[in-house]
């Protein structure tokens, strides 16, 4: 099996763990509470597009930092943005290291290890945004019945 396939397999094992899912659910629910009535939909979709298209974890982190700086955009509320940065950078780094040591026999290079972190971020943000959209569902139903 090629290295890429093994990396993807190891990532899917890690991301299907309950703790990973619960954390995505927790932050998605927090986002839904902060961004009421679809207020943050554009921002979170931009975040999702960014993480899927960028080649660096820090691009995503810098985007969140700038959103926190805007103050009125919700990321600064309830320490949401900082917690998200902390999870993406520190917690996912621990998972990345555990995957890297698990795949030690493949002698992964630095670039492949960096890709593991990026793929974990993509998976997490995608789950979080899905939870956010799901939580927003009732709000949207209420809005759509009004018109």
């Amino acid at each position, binding site marked *: 099996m090629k290295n*890429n396939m093994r990396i993807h397999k190891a990532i899917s094992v890690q991301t299907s763990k309950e703790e990973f899912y619960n954390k995505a659910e927790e932050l998605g629910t927090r986002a839904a509470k902060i961004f009421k009535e679809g207020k943050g939909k554009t921002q979170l979709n931009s975040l999702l597009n960014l993480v899927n*298209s*960028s*080649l*660096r*974890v*820090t691009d995503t*982190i*810098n985007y969140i*930092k*700038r959103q*926190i*700086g*805007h*103050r*009125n955009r919700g990321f600064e509320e309830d320490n949401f*943005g900082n917690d998200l940065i902390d999870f993406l950078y520190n917690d996912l780094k621990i998972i990345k290291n555990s995957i890297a040591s698990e795949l030690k026999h493949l002698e992964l290079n*630095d*670039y*492949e290890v*960096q*890709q593991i972190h990026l793929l974990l971020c993509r998976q997490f943000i995608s789950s979080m945004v899905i939870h956010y959209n799901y939580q927003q569902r009732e709000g949207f139903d209420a809005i759509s019945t009004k018109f």
Partner: protein
Amino acid sequence: MQFQPNSDQEESFKFLKPDEAKRLNLLADTDLYEMAMKFCNEDEFHLTKSKMNKLKGLIHTLTGVQVCDGRERIGSIIKYLRHQTHKSTIREEEKAFYEKLIRITNSDEGLRQFFHIPEFSNCMHQDTDGRTEKKRKKDKQDFYMYYFSREFLNHVIAEKMKGIPYAK
């Protein structure tokens, strides 16, 4: 996983071999980020929102330069920073902040000490415009320095912006 540079970086990256581009990308994502965070933790000074935006704007307009423009571009970042330090109304902390940034982004010291700049002799392009290999090598090194400076400043600005409230 194929390396695909962002569209705004294509101009710069097409001059580099895929492995070189990957290495730059990796350094910007790991070592440079750590270095920028260390810098921000040691220096709690915040520029005003407008000055930070000015610096951010300067860096954004420099994105996507060609390899041979590297020297020129790093020069314009440093020129801007130096110009700021010479203003009569500048506060001491602000001056110290700019001077620290100059020290790090200046090619003679700072970043050059943190990173091993590899030999580029084996990755020279075909000599089509009559330039000597030595000049070409220097161009590429300048581009590396420019790239490191730009990415370092990008990380510093994002971190500092986090703490600056925007006007509503």
